[in-house]
């Protein structure tokens, strides 16, 4: 029955990132063998040499950090019926966006020293700052099961719905002891769930890699920080790691 339907052709592309999310996808291909029965991968630099521009779904990892990225991204958008942002860099700018608001020429000199002139760079932006995006798979790295769920939803013709509630929900359901009760900080109360609270479960405070929920109460979290002996600066520094672009956007 299913074999008579042509497989959906999918492709993977990367911009500024560590390619860890594609590595996670490569991992998912090993644990979810039925994935390959449902889709045909036609472009995936990390796992194959063949390349094709004929694809239905494009997964894009990485943020847009150079003017030249924009043209390439627009071509992918043209070719694909569905464009998916894969991972934190494509979704919210990721760690690359720490340079948001800084002097870009200065950043370039700091990173590349006297060779700075040879390296093109600009502010780091999520891909939806350049082209329309149909679906998002947040996280640094992405959650394998969420990737699989997303593919299934897209094959069914649905846009996968992201949880719009904080990590605390999943953390409490796992019966984790709240990290604030053991003198640690955590961005769980303002960060989008879906990761199964994996970091707090292993005793590490949430870093916000899945981005802000749609109505984060940052003012209240500041209070929580100060009550627990951490100042506002600590919160702002923590929020810089993954949330720089979103914070800048919500302030402007």
């Amino acid at each position, binding site marked *: 029955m299913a074999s008579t339907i042509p497989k959906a052709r999918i492709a993977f592309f990367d911009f500024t990132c560590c390619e860890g999310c594609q590595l996670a996808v490569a991992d998912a291909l090993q644990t979810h063998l039925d994935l390959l029965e449902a889709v045909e991968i036609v472009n995936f630099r990390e796992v194959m040499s063949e390349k094709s521009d004929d694809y239905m779904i494009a997964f894009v990892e990485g943020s847009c950090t150079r003017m030249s990225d924009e043209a390439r991204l627009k071509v992918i958008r043209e070719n694909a019926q569905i464009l998916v942002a894969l991972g934190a860099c494509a979704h919210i700018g990721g760690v690359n966006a720490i340079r948001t608001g800084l002097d870009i020429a200065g950043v370039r000199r700091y990173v590349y020293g006297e060779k700075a002139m040879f390296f093109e760079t600009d502010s780091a932006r999520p891909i939806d700052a350049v082209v329309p995006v149909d679906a998002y798979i947040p996280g640094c790295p992405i959650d394998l099961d969420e990737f699989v*769920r997303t593919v299934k939803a897209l094959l069914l013709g649905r846009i996968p*719905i992201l949880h719009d509630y904080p990590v*605390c929900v999943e953390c409490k359901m796992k019966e984790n002891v709240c990290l604030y009760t053991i003198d640690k900080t955590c961005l769980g109360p303002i960060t989008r769930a879906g990761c199964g609270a994996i970091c707090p479960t292993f005793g590490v405070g949430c870093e916000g890699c899945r981005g802000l929920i749609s109505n984060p109460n940052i003012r209240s979290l500041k209070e929580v920080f100060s009550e627990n002996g951490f100042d506002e600066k600590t919160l702002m520094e923590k929020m810089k790691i993954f949330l720089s672009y979103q914070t800048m956007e919500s302030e402007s």
Partner: protein
Amino acid sequence: MNRRGYGEFEMTFKIIPKSVLAEWFDALNRDYRVLGPKPKAGQFIFDEIQTIEDVDLEYPTTILPPKKVLLPTKEVLFSFDANESQFEPQIEAVPVIILGIHTCDMHAIALLDHVFSSGYPDQHYLARRTKTTLISIECLKPCSEHAFCKDTGTLSVTEEFDLHLTDLGEDYAVDIGSEKGELIMANAPGVREAEIDDYQRLETVMSQKWARFPYRLNFDVSELPSLLSVSYDSILWKILGTKCMGCGSCTVVCPTCYCFDVVDEIDFSLETGERIRVWDSCQLNMFATVADGHNFRESHGARVRHRFFRKGKYLASAYGQRGCVGCGRCAQACLAHITPIETFNELYRRQFLTVYEPRGTMP
């Protein structure tokens, strides 16, 4: 069931020495999945009990209430084959004993029983509930600064217990509440009938208990529904809304919150899959979002109000039992310190302010 009888009445208590508990647990573990309060990083959770060393029956409270056993955070309702239009209910239930349930949580289970057997009886809940044996324990001292069970009238056990334990020092007094309870007591080692001395010990323990618990509400809890009714437009909800982060911890840890969402998980065939039930919460963004994206409880303040109305008024109207059992877990879990005791007391205080001060001049 004749309970607490003494003197000329039938004596129904048994006595089980603490020294035989290890042996008893071993026996129970052969036939049941035994869950009890177990330490976790300075707090407690209901978890698998293999040996007596695992359990601490003097625990203060647990992160999640026993509802997680009867209504798992995630469960399969049925599997389906959309192509063949076939549906197969997945009703899973193994014999479980929940050990050491505090009386507030027993009241909560009584409410959940009522909710899930009313209207369309919930087969999944009821199948699990039928296979669950409840061993409650008498609370002899306050467990948390946030608990107000004396106010909410949940400081003594409900009739849902199968066994009810009271700590007498070296022994537990055991009240048998059902045939399920009788069954597991029948196999318990070292059990004897209570004697006059035991009743006197029990009476001493029970008479000393009451005074240890403080009242924490500044008014009688029976006034709560009407207090909430007149406080619907209180500015306090707005104030609490600025503090609330919408993290839903309060409802996740609440022993009586039972709202759920239903989602489908499909296979790559895109034809077969499972329908799943997961916990939901009125504090979350999508909960009151309807078609076309409208959210009829948009602000945190409106959601906080809704939760307190559920706990103090709505469930009492619908099921004759208050939604709040005074366990204090929501207050413990709230990073923004939104607590039922302070909220209800503040509403009570403001009720008088509104008499003397025109609205709008309140802080």
